[in-house]
């Protein structure tokens, strides 16, 4: 039996990070994510870890990448405007293949927007926020317990695939308090990055002959290396030669896309015989579950598909779903972002209808039920 606690989503995220072995956090205060930093500020120093309040969000990502290069599991957390500021350095982390976790507790935008209001409108930014083609892993938990476990998974994926992982949840689940169980150490798997075993003189930080995820050496460990945000060869030094750039970019994408089966995770409710599906994540997924249960009580065959991994997108799963249901309903706290991705995968095989809301309130089960009846 683990420890039972009554925690806020943001606090559960901090607990998840500690469970996963995070010993370095850098951030800049912003609603509605600040509790992640406040919780870790009380905990990290006691276990010898580092917590820094940096001068801004740009510096926060820089610091966690620096710490990760020195071998520490590291994380930052932010919201809205802060997430925008972090983008350039997130791209650095992706190109240089530095494991770390970036938490975005979504609030209304653009600009200062609605600091205390929930939102799911950063979800495309999670994929396309930094410039250039790049790999993205983004997880979208919906329950406090799930924020804990998905934070652990975010660290594991970051270590396994040597890349920044984005954990995106909305203000409602970030601030909601629920009972959670923190498992004993060892119950959940905790993974560590593959480090080199070759002699330092033979080490190449981006050696593709070692597989799509080459081993990563810690700074100061004797494996002297050069890490640059310029496109680089396997030895880490800049190259301008186009074939090299091409193959390297492809490897970066492949190491995520080629491992979709391992990375993609989702939950379903009563989906097997459903005629109408609700596709929803985060707080909208919670409403979706209620709506489906209400519909079933009225004899309507509705089911829920709730992605825990939103990027890479569950393309095949949604395509298969689209072939067997009449309609997919996509409730989201934006003016229509992830619905586009669902439409793209459904390819016209079924009706796809969004429910959008940006007035600061969640989409209610009743709203979704109404739509289920409309299309069903």
């Amino acid at each position, binding site marked *: 039996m683990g420890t039972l606690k009554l925690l806020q989503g943001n606090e559960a995220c901090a607990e998840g990070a500690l469970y996963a072995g995070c010993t370095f956090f850098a951030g800049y205060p912003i609603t509605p994510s600040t509790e992640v930093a406040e919780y870790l500020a009380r905990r990290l120093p006691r276990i010898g870890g580092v917590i820094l309040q*940096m001068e801004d969000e740009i510096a926060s990502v820089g610091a966690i990448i620096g710490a990760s290069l020195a071998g520490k599991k590291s994380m930052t957390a932010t919201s809205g405007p802060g997430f925008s500021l972090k983008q350039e350095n997130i791209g650095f982390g992706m190109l240089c293949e530095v494991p770390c976790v970036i938490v975005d507790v979504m609030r209304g935008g653009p600009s200062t927007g609605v600091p205390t209001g929930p939102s799911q409108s950063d979800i495309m930014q999670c994929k396309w926020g930094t410039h250039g083609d790049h790999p993205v892993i983004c997880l979208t938990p919906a329950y406090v317990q799930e924020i804990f476990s998905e934070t652990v998974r975010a660290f594991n994926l970051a270590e396994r695939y040597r890349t920044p992982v984005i954990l995106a949840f909305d203000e409602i689940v970030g601030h909601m308090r629920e009972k959670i169980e923190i498992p004993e150490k060892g119950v959940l798997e905790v993974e560590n990055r593959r480090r080199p075993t070759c002699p330092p003189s033979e080490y190449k930080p981006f050696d593709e002959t070692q597989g799509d995820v080459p081993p990563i050496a810690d700074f100061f460990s004797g494996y002297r290396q*050069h890490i640059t945000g310029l496109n680089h060869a396997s030895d880490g030094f800049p190259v301008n030669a186009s074939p090299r750039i091409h193959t390297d970019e492809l490897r970066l994408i492949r190491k995520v896309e080629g491992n979709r089966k391992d990375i993609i995770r989702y939950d379903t409710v009563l989906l097997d015989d459903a005629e109408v599906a609700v596709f929803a994540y985060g707080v909208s997924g919670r409403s979706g579950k209620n709506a489906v249960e209400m519909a079933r009580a009225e004899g309507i065959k509705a089911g829920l598909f709730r992605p825990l991994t939103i990027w890479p997108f569950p393309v095949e799963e949604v395509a298969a779903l689209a072939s067997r249901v009449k309609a997919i309903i996509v409730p989201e706290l934006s003016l229509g972002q992830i619905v586009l991705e669902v439409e793209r995968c459904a390819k016209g095989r079924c009706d796809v209808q969004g429910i959008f809301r940006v007035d600061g309130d969640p989409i209610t089960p009743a709203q979704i039920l109404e739509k289920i009846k409309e299309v069903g």
Partner: protein
Amino acid sequence: MAFNYDRHIRHGKLPHIWCPGCTYGIVFKSLLRAVETMQIPKDHLALVSGIGCASRLPGYVDWNTLHTAHGRAIPFATGLKMARPDKRVLVVSGDGDATAIGGNHFIHACRRNIDITVIVMNNFIYGMTGGQHSPTTPVGHLATTMPFGNIDPTFNIPSLAQGAGATWVGRGTAYHVPVLDRLIIGAIEHKGLSVLEIINGCPTTHGRRNKFRTPTDMLLWMKESALPLSAFEKLPPDKVAGKFPTGVLYKREAPEFSETYFAMVERLQKQQEGGGG
């Protein structure tokens, strides 16, 4: 005695990208001599940079090196230092990198007094992008984005650093090389945030557009304009124009950030052991 740089240079990575007449190579060699003199093991050293011509320096050096984003070297260096407080972390930066786009990180690192050595290679211009004005381009000078003469007032980098709380501030030039070696050693030896501004010349994008006909003219200008701080302070007011002080300009002792942090950690852990709950 001829100095052997081979131990510190990455094989096969030269020639460097710097133009003929650029003074960055002088600083590069001075830095290697300083580290060799100090006998710092290569595995204990990290050299971090942002983006720009100056920021290409780490690529040539066989230490732990990190070439980050424009202006962001100091945050990455802060992460490295706090992750491994037992190691030495140096930053090399251009004037734009350190004081324009990276200005916020620069002043906050000074305030924090974290043990990082920040070397600002001031060539008075944005070299890499081809000669746009920087926060240190003298008023009146031509730059591609100030084609009628720069009207944008300048930063004095040592004053900026001192005002922001740096505990060691110095200035050297690419002309006064033996002094430069000693200044780099002093900056690295200092425990706390040290800022060393090194006056450099960019003949390609600054000098030749601003009445320095040859690279040598830029070095001669350094020779004539730089004065050791003690001599500078003795100048009568009417002789100050066009001169600048060099050497260690400011120094004080103050708690270093990583030491203070880990002292806090130790205190907390002792309390826990003591069952203080």
